[in-house]
């Protein structure tokens, strides 16, 4: 069928061709799809249960109704060691409004974490993470990584690397103000 002028826009063959090309493009793009890290936003935070350094059972689900600051860190991570004391201050200041900090160590063994906890004496639970938990949270392939989980249990933010602390604090206040 010979196409003329604007005829091509209404041609079934062209429509099929365009649809096929679009489909192929979608398939090609899916091979290099957006990383899993970004797919957690607005979704329920993956559940887990761990025993913290004080022997207590810790699970984000138990803090449903609170705003959770979930921080992946390690003892050898310098930016992490700068943030954690501030998170401790926020726990003390905003805890009464419903903030709960949970720190997940990505150290290879618990012994340096225990030493760190003995020294820092945080007012929030510190648990050990692992590759499986990191993968469930979209891949923790650099530290620190901080999640904000809203009162309804949905992931509100994922902050990669050292956080802009004033901006993070503002975001926490916004979430705390929500029912």
């Amino acid at each position, binding site marked *: 069928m010979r196409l003329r002028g604007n005829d091509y826009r209404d041609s079934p063959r062209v429509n099929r061709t365009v649809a096929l090309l679009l489909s192929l493009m979608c398939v090609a793009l899916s091979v290099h799809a957006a*990383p899993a*890290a970004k797919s957690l936003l607005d979704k329920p935070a993956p559940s887990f249960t761990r025993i913290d350094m004080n022997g207590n059972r810790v699970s984000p689900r138990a803090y449903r109704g609170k705003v959770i600051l979930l921080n992946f860190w390690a003892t050898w991570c*310098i*930016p992490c060691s700068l943030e954690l004391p501030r998170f401790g201050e926020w726990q003390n200041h905003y805890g009464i409004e419903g903030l709960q900090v949970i720190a997940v160590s990505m150290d*290879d063994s618990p012994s340096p974490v225990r030493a760190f906890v003995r020294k820092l004496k945080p007012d929030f639970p510190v648990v050990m993470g692992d*590759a499986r938990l990191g993968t469930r949270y979209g891949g923790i*392939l*650099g530290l620190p990584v901080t999640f904000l989980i809203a009162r309804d249990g949905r992931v509100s933010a994922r902050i990669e*690397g050292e956080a802009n602390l004033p901006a993070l604090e503002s975001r926490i206040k916004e979430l705390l103000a929500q029912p």
Partner: protein
Amino acid sequence: MERRQVARTVSIATLAFIAMIFTLPQCQAQFSANGPLPASALSIPQSQLIQPDALNGMLQTSKTDPPLLLQVGSRVMFNQARIPGSFYAGPGSQPEGLKLLESMVGQAPKSKFIVLYCGCCPWDRCPNVGPAYKRLHDLGFTNVKVLYLANNFGADWLYKGFRVEQGG
């Protein structure tokens, strides 16, 4: 005249004071725990760095004689995702990690092409690649490159669409 000189002196002193206020924390930061580590990533010569694009291209084409790829950071991160064909040999910041690194290269010829990488943190904060590179250099290895990951392994390798393998 004297009044003008006093005013000028006060102005200079005020400016110096303001400058001190802004620079002192930065000076302190340089000598704090945040300052350069004895064998930091920044101590690795630029000529020994390899960019992610270049390494990925090399791995795609050099099937017959690929480099020995050693991840010298966190085992937890290694198990989540690593460059295909790489081995864990860390952490470079710990004595036991450097021993593991030595054991991994023990029988290799000194001219063996080795690529070290970590990706735990931003390059200038990484505690692992610097000591690992230094150890190999001290052991006499002459063909060692370090993968330059400016931010971390996720941002500079995985999220760029380069292949990874998982598990461990």
